[in-house]
């Protein structure tokens, strides 16, 4: 029993593990992509877009309640048959591999510009991916602890951005509610890349120590991540205004330059330093998930899978550094993966619901038969 508690995730760790799948380098660019579509009402798109993670989390906790000892991979094999189930699992895995590579390439780009301009991309990639490999090698419990600690650092850093309130102006957010509905909907579509990641709860809910708290933990994760996203969009528009946001590639970082602390020339340096930890955490999480799915499908030991995938994850991020290729693949893949996730989860939940209703009915029939 004690062993279990040491090896399984606590509720807090599940919450922060989930935020560790979603708060990564993408949300530094979140104001850029959403403001391009929705203008100064981008924060409305941010709030409404939270429907997608909320839906995934609620349906996943239903599935978790019904089948608390398994994960989505075995369930899809059970309900859809072996062949179809495996194909669905492969598609599920592809999105984790894709996101690992794009996150690593974003890592390289941000570090190259802001911190280590003197290193070549391959060197930066080696450092980032090796750290992620080491963390993933150690297993899920370690990832949970890492996510918890680094999420506290992330929240601490975000609180500093409140200082930008002094220099911005409410006028930048006005006129409110004046953009067309179609623009707000387009804005919601562009939040999809940042809001994905909560599907990972389907993989790991069986490793939680207290299964009854999964729903609360994952809702808390959506709340934390959601408030950070909406706050990011809000404070960036408040400080910069919608005309200036497109001019910076990572506009949320400009918000941190408004903070003046006596000793430090530019608070941005402190933020970037913490950001390296944050990106390594999310990279490790995605790395582990990709290895986990492959391990489940092929039965190879998960530590060996991690090592085997290492060269792949050195090659792909360098390939994705090319902006045009990245944009093309992400524009193609992200909406389709999102729809795939929603459909997969909905179908699974429906089938579980139908089967459980049928099981109940047969139980009642059996009981009435017995009493007769």
């Amino acid at each position: 029993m004690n062993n279990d508690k040491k090896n399984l995730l606590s509720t807090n760790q599940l919450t922060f593990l989930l935020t560790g799948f979603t708060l990564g380098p993408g949300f530094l660019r979140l104001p850029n992509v959403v403001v391009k579509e929705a203008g100064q009402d981008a924060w409305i798109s941010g709030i409404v877009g939270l429907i997608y993670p909320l839906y995934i989390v609620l349906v996943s906790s239903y599935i978790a309640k019904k089948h608390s000892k398994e994960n989505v991979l075995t369930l899809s094999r059970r309900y859809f048959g072996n062949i179809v189930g495996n194909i669905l699992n492969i598609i599920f895995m592809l999105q984790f591999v894709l996101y690992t590579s794009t996150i690593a390439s974003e890592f390289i780009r941000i570090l190259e510009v802001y911190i280590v301009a003197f290193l070549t991309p391959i060197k930066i990639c080696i450092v980032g991916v090796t750290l992620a490999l080491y963390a993933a090698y150690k297993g899920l419990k370690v990832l949970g602890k890492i996510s918890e600690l680094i999420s506290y650092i992330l929240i601490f850093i975000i609180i500093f951005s409140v200082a930008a309130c002094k220099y911005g102006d409410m006028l930048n957010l006005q006129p409110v509610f004046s953009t067309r509905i179609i623009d707000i909907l387009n804005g919601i579509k562009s939040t999809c890349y940042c809001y994905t990641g909560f599907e990972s709860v389907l993989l790991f809910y069986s490793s939680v120590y207290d299964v009854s708290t999964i729903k609360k933990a994952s809702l808390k994760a959506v709340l934390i991540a959601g408030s950070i996203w909406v706050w990011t969009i809000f404070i960036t528009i408040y400080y910069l205004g919608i005309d200036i946001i497109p001019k910076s590639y990572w506009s949320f970082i400009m918000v941190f330059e408004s903070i003046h602390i006596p000793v430090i020339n530019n608070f941005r340096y402190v933020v970037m330093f913490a950001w390296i930890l944050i990106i390594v955490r999310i990279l490790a999480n995605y790395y582990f998930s990709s290895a986990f799915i492959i391990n489940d499908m092929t039965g190879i030991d998960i530590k060996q899978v991690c090592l085997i995938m290492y060269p792949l994850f050195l090659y792909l991020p360098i390939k994705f550094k090319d902006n045009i290729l990245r944009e093309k693949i992400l524009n193609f893949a992200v909406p389709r993966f999102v729809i795939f996730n929603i459909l997969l989860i909905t179908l699974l939940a429906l089938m579980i619901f139908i089967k459980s209703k049928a099981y109940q009915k047969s139980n009642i029939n059996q009981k009435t038969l017995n009493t007769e």
Partner: protein
Amino acid sequence: MNNKRMNNSLKNKFTNKKYILIILIIFILFVYFHSGIDYLPVEELGIPSGIGNDLSDDEFSIPMAIYNYGSDKKITTFIYTGVSDTIAGTRQNRQLLFNKNFRLGHERIIISSEKLARFGIINWVSIVFKNPNINDTALIAVTKEETKEILNYNVPEYPSAADYIAQMIKNSTEFNFFSDNYKLMDIFVRLYAEGRNIVLPYIELENGKFKITGMALFKKDKMMKKIDINDSRIMNILRENKVKGILALKESSKKYISYYTITKRNVKCERKNGKYYFTIDIGLNGEIVENNMFKDIRRNKETMQRFETYMSKYVEKMCYNFIRKMQNDYKVDCLELGRVAAAKFGRHTGVDWDEIITDRNKTEIKVKVNVNVKKMGRGNY
């Protein structure tokens, strides 16, 4: 017994091997990453204290004031100028004269000569924006003379003129209603934002001393006009919020009263029949620093009210004078009223706010000043 000891020693060997392996890997990585990187003491780095931007014969001329760490802890300045037809090209050109490796990040001021400001500052703003190392809190100013002359000027006991000018601009917020919005970051936020424009302090060398003699008004990225210090004071009262300065009422050359105040500004906007109506509410709150006119202002409530009405009427008159000049002469929306209108009536509608606000038929601006005296010093002589 023997078995156990052998097991233990094997285990120890294993953990020792692991540590040695890790240290070896770290050492190899260190050497791999460290190749080609030098460490230099600060005396051998070229750290600019100020950057100038000039235009000479259709070419960009960018002088940089570099600290020179001499013997006896004395710090002086050398000026190195790069000339080229692109701003990045000036870096190459300057390195031909330069004996050090220059590192941005510590520059205190970035000044522009009036010639380049009238040509357009978008070139150096865009190259500076791309560089993440630049100091976003550097102060910006426009100068009358060539920046080479300004940066070269020897201010006694100061390592460079740039330090002196930086402190001058920073402390200008004490009076004359200057705000602290003259940093590089403020230029980034105002340059192409809808309804906003840039104004910068204008510095001249007068009688061998640096002096702020007014402000430069920009339309987008080109300087349009230089206004003198009296107009700048009124513009700052109408434009900025929470700025400090001195206003005075004068009856004769010996009889006057001075009022040191902090302003508060509020703008409201309405639109009727396609015409814009702006109301600027200015609240002045301050203390009487000098009183040779209203002797019984402290005892008599009516005198106080008389002072307040006279002062508010005086400020309103000056404001209306300035607004008239702005609409007839300057042709730039330097009060950032376009920003309030865009916030109320929609952004990106294709409207040119400069045009609308400086057109007397399309805009009417009303100013209401409210004066409040809260302190009067320790007595009246």
